[in-house]
């Protein structure tokens, strides 16, 4: 451990930085009490939102000073990370970093840096954003720590394979790939599960070597327990939206989901979501609706459009449309039943083999159909995300089934999660307005 780095880490990431972030949170809470920035159509954000933001900001702040103090692993959003957390790794999610760049509206500039280096515009905008950040050294979070280990799991897409190979070459560090065979039917074959298990075992060996210590069964179990509890709480929060009117919009969920992705094995995450659930219940008791005049309830499929999150939420709320459910935020809750804390290894194998993007388009349709009933939905917005092919594949057929069989209007909204160049405000507004008119006409 580098003493200078340790001192800088202790001062900045443990004392001064957290104090500044706490002050910022208190200021935000004070402003929220005064009603600052309130929308006429949307309920104010949850009171706990500034705490969530502080927690995420602390994580990225720690990343600025963690080099030389803790081992760092860069991981994909669907990677099995519980053993890394148990081994003391600092985890960095490049996808989350790209999403931060998207909401900060700096993604296009960063993507352009990757494109100048020869990366095609047809690649995922998360990849281009992150590679551009890497090549240019620019990031809205201050500084990204160099990885000591890279872990890519193919359960979200195949792009990560190539993306992480580029990272491995750039940084010259070990890359571990966990390849999860696609689940075509209801169940993964025993061979597939065995194959994933073998790779997780191998990943643990590499991670132990990089960490310089052995994985403690107790720590592993403790982290797995927290992961499961946080996932269960997240799912409960989402399911509270079965209530009419919905207490929390999917747009809020897109922001509040950051800890369940990047901090899910930590005790603070469990506490945060437990408190969030209490506040959501309080909203239900008090009859607070996320969209003040909620009349229509819809589902959002695919990633959000990070750079237009607020604008789309406002546009829909103005027309009394509440986006109450999302297959994307649900993806971090629906795996809760697979997580068995008594056998963390086995539960990891199943939980990380069954994410929605590692299953067929029929499975996603089935999930959406279930959500339409459970959440009492009037329609569906399918974000056809130019960057995320695995998520967008099958949406044409899914839309046909939803409009035909279930008689629910379904809008295919062409956009991109990070690349503003693939988005036209006027056209999107017309599509969303026409969708609202369809909902109105069907009532």
């Amino acid at each position, binding site marked *: 451990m580098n003493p200078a780095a340790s001192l800088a880490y202790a001062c900045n990431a443990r004392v001064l930085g957290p104090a500044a972030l706490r002050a910022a949170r208190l200021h935000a809470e004070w402003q929220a009490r005064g009603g600052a920035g309130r929308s006429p159509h949307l309920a104010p954000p949850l009171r706990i939102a500034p705490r969530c933001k502080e927690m995420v900001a602390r994580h990225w702040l720690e990343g600025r000073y963690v080099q030389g103090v803790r081992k760092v692993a860069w991981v994909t959003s669907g990677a099995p990370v519980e053993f890394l957390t148990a081994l003391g790794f600092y985890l960095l999610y490049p996808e989350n970093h790209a999403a931060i760049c998207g909401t900060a509206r700096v993604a296009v500039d960063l993507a352009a840096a990757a494109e100048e280096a020869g990366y095609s515009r047809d690649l995922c905008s998360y990849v281009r954003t992150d590679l551009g950040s890497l090549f240019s050294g620019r990031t809205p979070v201050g500084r990204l720590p160099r990885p000591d280990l890279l872990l890519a799991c193919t359960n979200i897409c195949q792009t990560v394979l190539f993306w992480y190979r580029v990272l491995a070459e750039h940084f010259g560090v070990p890359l571990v790939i966990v390849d999860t065979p696609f689940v075509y039917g209801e169940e993964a074959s025993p061979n597939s599960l065995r194959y994933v298990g073998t790779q997780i075992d191998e990943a643990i060996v590499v991670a132990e070597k990089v960490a310089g210590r052995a994985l403690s069964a107790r720590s592993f179990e403790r982290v797995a327990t927290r992961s499961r509890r946080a996932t269960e709480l997240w799912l409960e929060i989402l399911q509270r939206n079965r209530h009419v009117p919905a207490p929390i919009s999917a747009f809020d969920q897109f922001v509040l989901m950051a800890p369940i992705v990047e901090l899910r094995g930590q005790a603070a995450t469990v506490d945060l979501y437990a408190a969030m659930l209490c506040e959501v219940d309080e909203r239900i008791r008090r009859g607070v609706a996320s969209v003040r005049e909620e009349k229509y309830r819809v589902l959002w499929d695919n990633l959000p459009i990070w750079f237009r999150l607020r604008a789309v939420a406002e546009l829909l709320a103005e027309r009394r449309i509440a986006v109450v459910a999302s297959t994307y935020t649900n993806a971090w809750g629906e795996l809760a039943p697979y997580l068995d804390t008594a056998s963390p290894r086995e539960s990891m194998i199943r939980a990380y083999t069954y994410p929605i993007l590692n299953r067929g388009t029929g499975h996603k349709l089935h999930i959406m159909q279930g959500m339409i009933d459970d959440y009492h939905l009037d329609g569906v917005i399918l974000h056809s995300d130019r960057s995320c092919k695995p998520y967008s594949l099958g949406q*044409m057929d899914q839309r*046909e089934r939803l*409009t035909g069989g279930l008689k629910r*209007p*379904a809008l*295919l909204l*062409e956009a991109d999660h990070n690349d503003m160049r*693939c*988005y*036209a405000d*006027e*056209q999107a507004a*017309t*599509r969303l*307005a*026409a969708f609202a*008119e*369809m909902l109105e*006409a*069907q009532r």
Partner: protein
Amino acid sequence: MTGVSALGIDVGSATVKVVGVDDAGALCWDALEPAQARAEVQIARMVEDARRACDTLGGGKVSLIATGCGRGLVHQAVREVTEITCHARGVFREVGHGGTLVDVGGQDSKVIAIDPGGAVTDFAMNDKCAAGTGRFLENAARHLGVPLESLGHVALEAREEVRISSTCTVFAESEIVSLLAHGVAVEPIVRGIHRALILRLVAMIRSVGLVAPLMLSGGVVCNPAIGTMLAEETGQQVVLPRHPQLMGAYGAALIALEGR
């Protein structure tokens, strides 16, 4: 002539249309002008003209609904409604049945599924580019030196057709330049660009699912080759309302009439 009971304005990318309807919803007054750069000035003047016509025809102060891509600029309107709903409403009233409506405008095209009761059940629009729209034909006409008004007739009279592989307006221009440079005659190219546009429309029709009959609206369908070649490609007869270019404004006026 009966009095005007409601007005609709369709501010499109190429033209601005205003329509007045009487108490029974019949189209009784209209105006159409090419869109000008100073849109708000033009809109104010056209609305004023329409109001004057209402007074002349004995309609008095009537409500106005705005549609089209420039609908947000019509400050005189009581409400904005999208082109999708307005075209569907106008065409349904005009032809009296549902089906699949293809609206080809100056900068966007739409395919709209209309149920037997006149409600929109689904729609598709062109993506963020001019492929499959009037702009595609306009650009091609300019390069080929053919007046826009006679473009459709030239296409229908052509004995041969060359394949234009791109529906991207920019790439298609390059193809046209290249074909002309190789000595290909103008007529087969004109027919080829129509085919490219039609194939783009057919792809959009398929994405919504074709329910007969096929109906057309929008200024571009005044080009006779669009209806003829679309019928050829789909094997369906196409229904053309009397005033295809006015259907958006007409639908807006009908909605204004209902909301009185």
